[in-house]
């Protein structure tokens, strides 16, 4: 049927057009890309070599920015032309960094190092993978031209004047063979050029993109911990709202009512008025106590004033079980980390007091600068053991909260004791 024939023709025409476009793009890539990567590679090497002389400190960020621009252009082309997504994963460089810091921060970025590694790959393997589809599309036309009469300009029919592929062109007959070879190549090219161009971009991705599996895992963990963090903070806000509403707010209302009554009674019945004033004062004191407890639950004052070490010491002083606190922290940690660590320790200590039956507890806090900084906390008691991080236990809540900071919690609590809870939170100290 007509329509069938049309669509068949359209399909063939579409395929030819796609192949032609792919061939043209591949040709462009094969010509321009290696030139760019060779120039940038030479510049990068020279600039990095000059770093010890000081000149490189200034030039390297510029060159690396150009490399990144070049790589970003190729990322764009990979998506547009090949449907291959190559996510950029550069680390941000602080705006106010000095040239020295900027240079070394850039060189320390794995994404930048992948860029630099990619340049030589792009000028060799990248060139081949771009050249192949271009040749398959454009080389056949030389064969057709030879068959059509170009052979006459190259040879007089007696000697081999030109090689087309593996065909020696020496006359009309061999020129026709060259044309046939060209046709065969073109057919192969039409069917494979888009695929081959995609191979070029896949090669680019294999060098430029970071390990995809690792990245996916990281995304999964972050999604999970973000959800936990959002849930926890929403629950926290609800609790604070409820506490304010039922506690301090209600007491202040009662106080206002008492004072209103006092205003009315003060002349008529001074004795009654005095009673009410006393009650209002008690209400105000109770409201203050409640607000104080609430503040302690949100951000303990000692934590704000003195930092994690003394906050945990103050916490230990309030426990009914003798608790030794050993602190080795250089300066203050980040405020969110301090709060998370404090509430984690608080929860673990509460657990120990409630369930362990211990007579002594030891808390050890220290910070090591290794791997960008790590806060380590160990809470040990001489109680009965048997603590676990199962679902619903307080410890799993602590684990989830620490997860927001990429922190981990480990519990060693054999039946019969002792129990040791260790926590690690990566963080820098100031």
């Amino acid at each position: 049927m007509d329509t069938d024939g049309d669509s068949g023709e359209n399909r063939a025409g579409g395929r030819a057009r796609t192949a032609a476009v792919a061939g043209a793009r591949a040709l462009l890539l094969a010509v321009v890309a290696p030139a760019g990567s060779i120039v940038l590679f030479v510049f990068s090497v020279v600039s990095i070599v000059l770093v010890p002389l000081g000149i490189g400190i200034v030039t390297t960020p510029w060159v690396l920015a150009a490399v990144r621009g070049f790589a970003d252009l190729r990322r764009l082309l990979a998506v547009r032309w090949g449907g291959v997504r190559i996510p950029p994963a550069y680390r941000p460089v602080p705006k106010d960094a000095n040239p020295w810091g900027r240079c070394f921060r850039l060189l320390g970025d794995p994404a930048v190092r992948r860029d630099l590694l990619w340049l030589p790959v792009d000028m060799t393997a990248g060139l081949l993978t771009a050249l192949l589809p271009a040749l398959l599309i454009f080389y056949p036309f030389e064969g057709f031209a030879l068959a059509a009469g170009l052979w006459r300009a190259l040879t007089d029919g007696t000697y081999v004047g030109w090689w087309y592929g593996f065909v020696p062109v020496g006359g009309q007959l061999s020129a026709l063979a060259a044309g046939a070879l060209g046709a065969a190549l073109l057919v192969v090219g039409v069917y494979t050029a888009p695929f081959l161009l995609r191979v070029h971009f896949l090669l680019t991705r294999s060098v430029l993109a970071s390990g995809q599996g690792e990245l996916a895992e990281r995304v999964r963990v972050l999604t999970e911990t973000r959800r936990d963090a959002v849930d926890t903070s929403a629950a926290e806000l609800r609790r604070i709202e409820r506490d304010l509403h039922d506690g301090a707010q209600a007491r202040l209302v009662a106080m206002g009512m008492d004072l209103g009554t006092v205003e009315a009674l003060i002349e008529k019945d001074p004795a009654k008025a005095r009673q009410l004033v006393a009650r209002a004062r008690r209400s105000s004191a109770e409201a203050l106590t409640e607000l104080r407890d609430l503040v302690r639950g949100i951000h303990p004052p000692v934590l704000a004033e003195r930092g994690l070490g003394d906050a945990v010491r103050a916490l230990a002083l309030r426990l009914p079980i003798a608790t030794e606190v050993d602190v080795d922290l250089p300066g203050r940690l980040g405020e969110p980390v301090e709060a998370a660590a404090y509430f984690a320790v608080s929860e673990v200590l509460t657990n120990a007091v409630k369930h362990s039956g211990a007579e002594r507890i030891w808390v050890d806090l220290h910070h090591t600068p290794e791997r960008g900084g790590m806060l380590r906390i160990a809470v040990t008691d001489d109680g009965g053991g048997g603590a676990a991080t199962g679902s619903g236990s307080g410890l799993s809540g602590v684990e989830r909260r620490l997860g927001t900071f990429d922190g981990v919690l480990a519990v060693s609590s054999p039946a019969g004791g002792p129990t040791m809870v260790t926590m690690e939170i990566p963080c820098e100290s100031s």
Partner: protein
Amino acid sequence: MRVVLAEDLFLLRDGLVRMLEAFDFEIAAAVGTGPELTRALADLEPDVAVVDVRLPPSHTDEGLQCALAARRARPGLPVLVLSQHVEQLYARELLADGVGGVGYLLKDRVFDAEQFIDAVRRVAAGGTAMDPQVIQQLLARRQGDDRPLGRLTPRELEVLELMAQGRSNAAIAGHLVVTERAIAKHTSNIFQKLGLDVSDDDNRRVLAVLAYLDQGR
């Protein structure tokens, strides 16, 4: 009596100034920041300092640190520290030098003007004024275990609590509505059970009690 007052909230500072003046104190200076406090304590040599724990510019425990530094420079300088919250940790730091003339109270205590002024006078006279909350924290901690404190009767615990706040026997007797002689008997029982030497110095006996409560950690 000349007072140096440090409190960053204007309304509260103003209220304290008026309250202290109403009770015949002379306000040598009323300041709002840590550096101003340090200068005032060094230059004006007051009889007593009333200091808020949290002061600008750091808004941390700057007031406490200034007070401790001033006491190191001039041992025994009477200092009453006020705070929105009380912590044993800070109470112990204030008592650490063992010289006396220190107080540590919740800010709410100013609601009861007479009690508050009594505390200022006690501190100025070289005595101690610890907030009942601090003492309760200490006692709650100790009642749990089988140390000598467990052997005290409820009445004796009550007396100990008031004693640790820095009150004299007469004041305790007034508070509990019993005779002073009964209190004297209770205190000697307490000292005996705790194994402390009897001393008639109010300040020393509070320090002794606190030191006892603190030991064996």
